[in-house]
């Protein structure tokens, strides 16, 4: 986690920690971090899939490819998440 996290805690200056507020802030920051990570990986994957020799701009076919790639990467993420969750459930059931 980044430095900003620390300042969030101390921001009020009252010196009193509000667990509810802290938990809410942590959840938001984790969600942002996850979204950023997904975006970063998706950008890398779609660039590799859709851009051959980089031209002067993104042409129509490249843009269409990137759009489809983004959608498919999200599908893949969801499928992997479900499959992994399902596997964890099975492993727990067998314990």
């Amino acid at each position, binding site marked *: 986690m980044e430095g900003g996290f620390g300042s969030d805690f101390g921001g009020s200056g009252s010196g009193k920690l509000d667990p509810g507020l802290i938990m809410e802030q942590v959840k938001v920051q984790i969600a942002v971090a996850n979204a950023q990570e997904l975006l970063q990986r998706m950008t890398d994957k779609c660039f590799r899939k859709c851009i051959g020799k980089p031209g002067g701009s993104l042409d129509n076919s490249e843009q269409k490819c990137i759009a*489809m790639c983004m959608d498919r990467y999200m599908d893949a993420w969801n499928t*992997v998440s479900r499959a992994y969750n399902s*596997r964890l459930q099975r492993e727990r059931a067998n314990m």
Partner: protein
Amino acid sequence: MDSSSSSSAAGLGAVDPQLQHFIEVETQKQRFQQLVHQMTELCWEKCMDKPGPKLDSRAEACFVNCVERFIDTSQFILNRLEQTQKSKPVFSESLSD
């Protein structure tokens, strides 16, 4: 988390059991998410040829199999390492060097 983060987290946990539980749950969720990110990236390379208008059933089946085999592989590696360590302690030898 680095050590300072984990120590401050432990400090917060000591203040409030609810917060302690929250930290444990969120940490576990984050570990899950990280592995999903990692496996998606890995399985994308194995299962996705040309991204089309939808995720076809063959590709979807490939992703599911990929997740299962990745976990099987990591379990196999751990088990084999444990067995190897019992008969021939590789790590302790290298550690003593």
